[in-house]
């Protein structure tokens, strides 16, 4: 049993009511929470700091009517095995009322290795779908008209190649690039910081990101070429404040690169979108989203001179926290995910992925995915939460937390600037070290039971019932390797060689790499071949880890 409430006379540095439990009153990020919040805690300038939904600084939401106008997109991340299995799951999700697609790629695809590469052995189709060439991408979206769906693709280092595949699937369906809607993650900075799936050194990787922003600005007005992601930073163990600060600073770094390229802020800023974690500390998360919108709006207008409101409006996707899920008593995860999803909705998310209760064990089963989707539908249609924008706006507590969240982010911005900006800070392991420290501190709190995770370090249960899990058939790897062989056998080898040579040549110049990547993709060059061609010019990346 948990420790019973005990009266404690005082806590360091502040007076407390005599009836408080002996507990740490702080957020999961360690941010202290006062005994009470009162009117004096709210910001002094309501108009400048809070305002109205849909108006600068967008603290209360990017749109005036929020979910009264349009509910968030329910977007479950899916992908495993070969494209046939994932295509089936896509159809399943669309048939059950999902409104957008989100593709998870396997590790070899994320790292730029073809499925028959030695490094891919045992990893093909395990954590996502394997995509090696345009043939695979065509199979992935078989029977799904791209004109009518918005697609999200979680891929970073090789993002330009996967975008090219997608554009060509659209071309085959008769949908031109300007009609394609969706998001590709492309956020390489957070890869070096947290997610650790890379192909090239930082500078050429940044050049590729900027090439994509530039190309999409000209050719894909409905597409989001970068989804600036805090999700993985948080999953790697950061605090909420670090997630906010590092993510926004990454975003500002992409903005600066695009401006250096000669783009106008108002031509591309509205196409940048964000991706945040929805963790278990309810009010801290809501404050994080509200602070994010305010900081971004201020920076776009005050620092970078944006004039269009669209450029200042931060829009984001949220995913509930994978790390908050427990392998113990997995049904409890349905409750965790519900709370996290509700925080994202009250914080004004534009789209949402809810994790499935069995994900601390393996990839989710169809049943678990259905419960996760139903969780969103219950919030949307039963809870009443979407009835008014920013329902917690004006709460002294939430406004105060929002202010403190913003201040913490600016503190980090200053420290990163002192190091010479985000790229240099990453080279010096600054964000990596901050995250490792936070992750370790949190684990110590669990070990010492200063923080309780139900079913893990308290309220445990012996003889747990086994949960059925999704097994990936090892035969799928062989099947994918066969698909790849068929692609290689069926293409014009001379055309492929010429296209790869051209890509390599362009990589050595300052030319935008999207056109030669599109040409190589059309010739059915594989992802691994294109990455290898670019690596001949760019080199590879190895980190010196800190722990």
């Amino acid at each position: 049993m948990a420790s019973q409430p005990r009266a404690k006379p005082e806590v360091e540095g502040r007076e407390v009511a005599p009836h408080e439990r002996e507990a740490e009153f702080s957020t999961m990020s360690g941010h202290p929470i006062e005994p009470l919040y009162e009117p004096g805690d709210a910001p002094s300038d309501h108009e400048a700091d809070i305002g109205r939904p849909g108006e600068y600084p967008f603290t209360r939401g990017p749109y005036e009517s929020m979910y009264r106008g349009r509910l968030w997109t329910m977007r479950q991340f899916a992908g495993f095995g070969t494209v046939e299995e994932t295509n089936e799951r896509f159809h399943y999700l669309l048939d059950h009322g999902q409104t957008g697609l989100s593709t998870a790629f396997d590790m070899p695809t994320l790292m730029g290795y073809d499925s028959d590469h030695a490094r891919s052995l045992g990893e093909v189709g395990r954590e996502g779908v394997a995509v090696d060439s345009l043939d695979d991408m065509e199979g992935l979206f078989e029977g799904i008209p791209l004109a009518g769906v918005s697609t999200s693709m979680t891929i970073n280092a090789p993002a330009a190649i996967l975008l090219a595949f997608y554009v060509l699937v659209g071309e085959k369906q008769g949908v031109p690039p300007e009609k394609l809607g969706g998001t590709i993650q492309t956020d390489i900075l957070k890869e070096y910081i947290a997610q650790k799936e890379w192909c090239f050194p930082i500078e050429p990787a940044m050049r590729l990101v900027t090439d994509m922003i530039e190309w999409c600005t000209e050719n894909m007005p409905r597409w989001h070429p970068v989804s600036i992601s805090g999700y993985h930073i948080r999953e790697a163990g950061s605090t909420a404040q670090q997630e906010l600060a590092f993510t926004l600073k990454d975003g500002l770094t992409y903005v600066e690169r695009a401006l250096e390229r000669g783009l106008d802020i108002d031509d591309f800023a509205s196409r940048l979108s964000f991706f945040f974690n929805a963790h278990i500390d309810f009010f801290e998360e809501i404050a994080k989203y509200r602070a994010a919108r305010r900081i971004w709006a201020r920076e776009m207008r005050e620092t970078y001179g944006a004039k269009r409101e669209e450029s200042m409006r931060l829009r984001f996707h949220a995913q509930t926290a994978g790390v908050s899920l427990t392998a113990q008593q997995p049904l409890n995860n349905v409750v965790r995910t519900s709370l996290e999803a509700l925080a994202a909705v009250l914080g004004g998310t534009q789209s949402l992925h809810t994790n499935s209760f069995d994900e601390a064990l393996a990839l989710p089963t169809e049943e678990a995915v259905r419960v996760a989707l139903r969780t969103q539908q219950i919030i949307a249609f039963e809870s009443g939460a979407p009835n008014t924008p920013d329902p917690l706006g004006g709460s002294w507590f939430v406004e105060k937390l929002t202010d403190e969240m913003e201040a913490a982010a600016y503190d980090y911005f200053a420290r990163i600037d002192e190091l010479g900006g985000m790229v240099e800070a990453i080279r010096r392991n600054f964000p990596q070290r901050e995250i490792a420290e936070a992750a370790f501190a949190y684990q110590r709190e669990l070990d010492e039971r200063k923080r309780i995770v139900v079913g893990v370090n308290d309220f445990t249960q012996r003889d747990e019932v086994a949960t059925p899990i999704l097994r990936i058939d090892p035969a799928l790897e062989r099947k994918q390797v066969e698909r790849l062989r068929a692609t290689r056998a069926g293409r014009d080898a001379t055309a492929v060689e010429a296209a790869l040579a051209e890509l390599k040549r362009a990589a050595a110049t300052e030319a935008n790499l999207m056109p030669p990547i599109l040409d190589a993709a059309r010739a059915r060059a594989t992802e691994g071949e294109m990455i290898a061609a670019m690596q001949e010019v760019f080199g590879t990346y190895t980190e010196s880890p800190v722990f």
Partner: protein
Amino acid sequence: MEAATARKIRVVVAKPGLDGHDRGAKIIARALRDAGMEVIYTGLHQTPEQIAETVIQEDADAVGLSILSGAHMTLVPRVVELLKEQGVDDVLVTVGGTIPAEDIPELKQLGVAAVFTPGAGTDEIVDFIREGAAERHERGS
């Protein structure tokens, strides 16, 4: 216990495969180091060959393999096999990560001493490695 304290326990913490999830590996590496052990963290994206070589070169008492990618049934047997091929049969091999319960017996049969799944405390892991390494030292390896 004399033998156990004569030399610091040496542990290789390794990330096999393409999996970039290093939160757990780094926490364990730090906890082992704080417990007075000598920790060699391989960094990410290691092949089984690279890991076996590190274990041998460092004359490690234990190796902890951290895998969250689902590729454990390919990668772990390969590391164990490579160690055996090189005549190394007394290194304590442990695995941590999202390992389904039904895979654990097979991993243990291969010679894995322990599998730590999500929620395992660092103290439990530190104690396990300390005891296992002490036995190895007593045997005089």
